[in-house]
């Protein structure tokens, strides 16, 4: 890594649509820019493997997916530096990035940082969700995109949200079989979503989305109003037990169970950097607090894309460009008036891309029983802590996630709360009878991704630390 600059003007973290668009715009204006990404190829998750997927028939993954390729070309031509296979484990308030690459670590300073780390699937804690063979629908989508792998045998999809239907549609296009879709969309959500229907009908989602939904429903058995789920099996999933409404339990065989109930911002890096965050009641998740340009509470750090609130891939792209324009302004390359002028078309595109979101967010908000699970359900997969254990701790007076973490080890595992945080907060809030906003969230610290001692030991030395380490 000796050919890297000592300091970049702009560092963008995450090579999904927001990161690609931001880095492209800034670099084209002559700002020294580096794009850092964990994966070996650009695209983030939504456009995962867009430059190298073995699934070359474009009608399988769909045109929305292939739009990702349109972002990569301009990025490669922009003059930005690209560092794939690089894991960022820390961003400090003084804008130093700790990253690892090829077994060595490095501290990389920047004058401005845009976090574009996107989203992850909302945890879907049901009894048995830790069994091999149970995975996220997003995970199945990644296996399809990167490796052309599809689930076989008895395949059951369960949950709610656009990605579930998109995956089902992609599977059908690929010739894969889906036995059943268990739709957990709560009935009452329709009533709550109705007021937002007219805006939704004017949005970009309605045309494609409806077509896709109807095609899947025509070809796959869909069971609506599923109110409970349990994955069963010995050593791996073998069947799924579910209930429709208040009805009797039914059991269906499953070799693979794909769960999905929406995506939520991936906030670990922002949180560990000290960016303020707030509870969003509509999206029912924690969201970093940002202004209209993506600027956070930490000077010099902005967030673009789903990491600052779920808006989808196109919205992420436009937010990336807005964040880049603001970075240019903050770096002194553009005055405010020019920034605002140049932002106008991106704002307009953003507004259009976000139209209809509220309808989708409301319709697909997961039901309470899938956010606040029963006692015997594991909520912390890493440390195998159940919802019941969290509730018992709350009864003892352990009143927040940081305390339950210290008390139960819940949240102390390698995932750093990514898969348990939202659930733990909701379980505590429900047990205490307060809002999740009042309960708060984990206080995260770097490294936000594990780092080996070998990597840490390889960080370049400074004079004072030579003195500190020498035996005395």
């Amino acid at each position: 890594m000796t050919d890297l600059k000592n300091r970049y003007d702009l560092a963008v973290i995450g090579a999904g649509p927001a990161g690609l668009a931001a880095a492209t715009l800034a670099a084209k204006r002559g700002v020294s820019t580096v794009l850092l990404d964990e994966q070996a190829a650009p695209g983030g998750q939504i456009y995962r493997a867009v430059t190298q997927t073995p699934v070359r028939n474009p009608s399988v993954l769909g045109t929305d997916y292939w739009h990702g390729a349109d972002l990569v070309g301009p990025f490669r031509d922009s003059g930005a530096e690209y560092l794939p296979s690089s894991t960022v484990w820390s961003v400090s308030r003084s804008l130093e990035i700790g990253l690892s690459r090829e077994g060595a670590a490095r501290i990389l300073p920047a004058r401005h940082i845009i976090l574009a780390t996107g989203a992850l699937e909302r945890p879907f804690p049901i009894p048995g969700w830790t069994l091999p063979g149970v995975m996220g629908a997003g995970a199945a989508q990644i296996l399809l995109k990167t490796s052309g792998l599809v689930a076989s045998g008895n395949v059951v999809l369960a949950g709610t949200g656009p990605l579930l239907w998109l995956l089902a549609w992609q599977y059908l296009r690929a010739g894969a079989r889906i036995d059943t879709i268990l739709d957990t969309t709560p009935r009452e959500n329709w009533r709550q979503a109705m007021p937002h229907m007219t805006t939704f009908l004017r949005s970009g989602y309605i045309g494609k989305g409806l077509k896709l939904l109807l095609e899947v429903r025509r070809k796959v058995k869909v069971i609506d109003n599923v109110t409970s789920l349990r994955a069963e099996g010995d050593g791996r999933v073998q069947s799924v037990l579910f209930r429709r409404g208040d009805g009797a339990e039914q059991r269906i065989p499953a070799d693979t169970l794909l769960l999905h109930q929406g995506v939520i911002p991936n906030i670990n890096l922002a949180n560990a950097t000290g960016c303020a965050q707030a509870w969003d009641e509509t999206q029912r998740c924690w969201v970093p607090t940002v202004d209209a340009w993506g600027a956070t509470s930490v000077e010099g750090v902005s967030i673009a894309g789903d990491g600052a609130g779920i808006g989808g891939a196109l919205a992420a792209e436009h937010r990336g460009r807005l964040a880049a324009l603001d970075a240019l302004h903050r770096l002194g390359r553009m005055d405010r008036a020019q920034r605002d002028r140049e932002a106008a078309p991106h704002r307009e595109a953003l507004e259009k891309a976000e139209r209809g979101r509220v309808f989708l967010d409301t319709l697909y908000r997961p039901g309470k029983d899938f956010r606040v699970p029963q006692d015997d359900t594991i909520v912390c997969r890493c440390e195998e802590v159940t919802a019941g254990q969290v509730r018992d701790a709350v009864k003892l007076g352990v009143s927040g996630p940081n305390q339950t973490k210290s008390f139960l080890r819940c949240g102390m595992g390698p995932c750093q709360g990514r898969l348990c945080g939202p659930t733990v907060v909701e379980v505590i809030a429900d047990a205490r009878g307060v809002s999740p906003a009042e309960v708060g969230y984990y206080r995260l610290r770097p490294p936000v991704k594990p780092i080996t001692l070998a990597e840490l030991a390889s960080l370049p030395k400074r004079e004072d630390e030579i003195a500190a380490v020498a035996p005395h």
Partner: protein
Amino acid sequence: MFQRLPNASGERVSFTIDGRPAEALAGDSVAAALIANGVQTCRSTPVSGAPRAPYCMMGVCFDCLVTIDAVGNQQGCQVRVRPGMRVETQNGKREIER
């Protein structure tokens, strides 16, 4: 249980899983390669010994931890399979003997 789509093509990569020879496509992550080779469990948990397999495929769940070329606790979904790579599943509970 996962199958490769018939027209998913690419360069083949030879590697080993727990000492057994296996094949993957260039571009597969180690986790994907294990799934393609029918490996159902890639580790058992240190807490209870429960079997686990990849869950998120994007580096956030840490259930796909495997040993790669003798270095343990690596996220299989974040590492691309390379020719000659030695992948070992991490089964077995670890507990301090008293």
